[in-house]
């Protein structure tokens, strides 16, 4: 489905999601507040986004940007769902009750960024060993063992 058609369709069903929907690089993005995330996600699940593609985060310096990718087979479309998390208080609601797929993705985001997912049944590290300290994908992650790569270009 065309992205603008999707926006019109979404606006008709969930008008409060409408102003939050933007089109960037020919792709739909919905940006919500942290507290409204769970409600928006369940609305989107009802709307037809049956599959959760990924949950991840981007370190934007002052805040973490939580990014979620939802796919719909019935609508032949996929969109991103985002929200901003303050760096000092990186917590957000877990979506495992809506999509069981969220389980491992949230564990990975917790592992690499340190974002705590409230309501997650089993939040522990997945890719790194359990004893690892620190969250590597943060921009301020420092590890003495890392050898600085020479800049070829």
């Amino acid at each position, binding site marked *: 489905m065309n992205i603008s058609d999707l926006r019109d369709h979404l606006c008709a069903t969930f008008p409060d999601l409408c102003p939050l929907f933007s089109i*960037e*690089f*020919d*792709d739909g*993005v919905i940006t919500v507040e942290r507290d409204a995330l769970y409600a928006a996600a369940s609305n989107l699940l009802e709307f037809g986004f*049956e*599959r*959760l*593609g*990924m949950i*991840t985060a*981007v*370190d934007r310096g002052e805040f973490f940007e939580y*990014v979620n*990718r939802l*796919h719909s*087979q019935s609508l*032949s*479309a*996929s969109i*991103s769902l985002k929200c901003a998390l303050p760096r000092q208080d990186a917590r957000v609601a877990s979506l495992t009750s809506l*999509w*069981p*797929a969220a*389980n*491992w*993705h949230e564990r*990975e985001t917790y592992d*690499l960024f340190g974002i705590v997912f409230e309501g997650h049944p089993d939040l522990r*590290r*997945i*890719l*790194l*060993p359990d004893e690892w300290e620190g969250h*590597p*994908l943060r921009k301020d992650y420092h590890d003495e063992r890392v050898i600085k*790569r020479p800049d*070829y*270009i």
Partner: protein
Amino acid sequence: MPLGVESRRNVETADGSFTEELVVNIGPSHPSTHGVCRVVVHLDGEIVTRAEPIIGYLHRGIEKMAENRTYLQVVPLTDRLDYVGSMYSNWAYCRAVERLAGIRVPERGEYLRVIVCEMQRIASHMMALGSMGADTGAFTFFIYAFDQRERIVELFEELCGARLTYNYVRPGGVASDLPEGWTSRLLEFTTAHRSALGELDRLYFGNAIARGRLKGVGVLDASDAIAWGATGPVARGSGVNWDLRKHDPYSVYPRFDFDVPTGTNGDAYDRARVRLFECYESCRIIEQALAQMQPGPCSAEGLPRLLAPRPGEAYDHIESARGTLGVYLVSDGSTRPHRMKVCSPAFSNLALLPLLAEGHLLSDLVVVLGSLDPVFGEVDR
């Protein structure tokens, strides 16, 4: 890490008596050919009560590494994600870069990408089927499947010089055009491959023992498949009729005529058959692409050597042999990505293992793992 019994717990059974539960560790290094995966299995006698995969043994921090490399230098990193499918891993990444930077790939480049991706799909499925056969003890089937894979890998070696990690699909197109005579050799392969597939089918799937091992094992319901984020042959084996190439087409796929095989029961047998039939469909696509392809540039001209897309985020995905492979790329205007996230289908598919293995025998666990077809480069990144 020692391979040993970790703990024994007393489990109360339904009639009030206690049995000892055995916890068995199928270590990260084991002869099953799927890579470094550790599965902690709780057994009640022979039946698996709980199977938990523990991943991360192949975690190399590719996403973090990508933040310190230019956009072109990231392409060889993506090779090593799903190392059985370098071509399509490269392609997913390049599509995201092209979306960000607004690059338009010339038509011949798109056709070449489709051709190598479909060849890679066949090679990947041959490996998946072969290793699943080897896990169940059919070593000859494994060799025959790898013979087919060898033909493709030889063609790739002629094309780009490498047998496993190709670094061929680049932002803007492909690295180089086809060598002489390559298309005729490829056509010879696709013709020969169809009869080879028939032979493989009769050798393994026609065998009553193999059917007994695969049928009814690891049954996945279609709604569970979607809810758990499964894609690719794992979801299609359960009847979920969703293939990005057909239902959300990208590149030049709308110009081809092919079918999407789906299963009905969602067991390991159906998933394996879906992979087998997809090879037939890939042959069809390759032949059509070779017929339709016109001479021309195979890569976008005038691209700067150092790409610096304007700030923003883009997500793009393709249908890989394992499912929907997506790349989410964040650019901050510099020559290096700010964040690259790879949504690997094998990661989501592997999360299904506890669900599918429960209630089966220990021997079935290997079959289930084989039918989910994980490649740990992609799972762990």
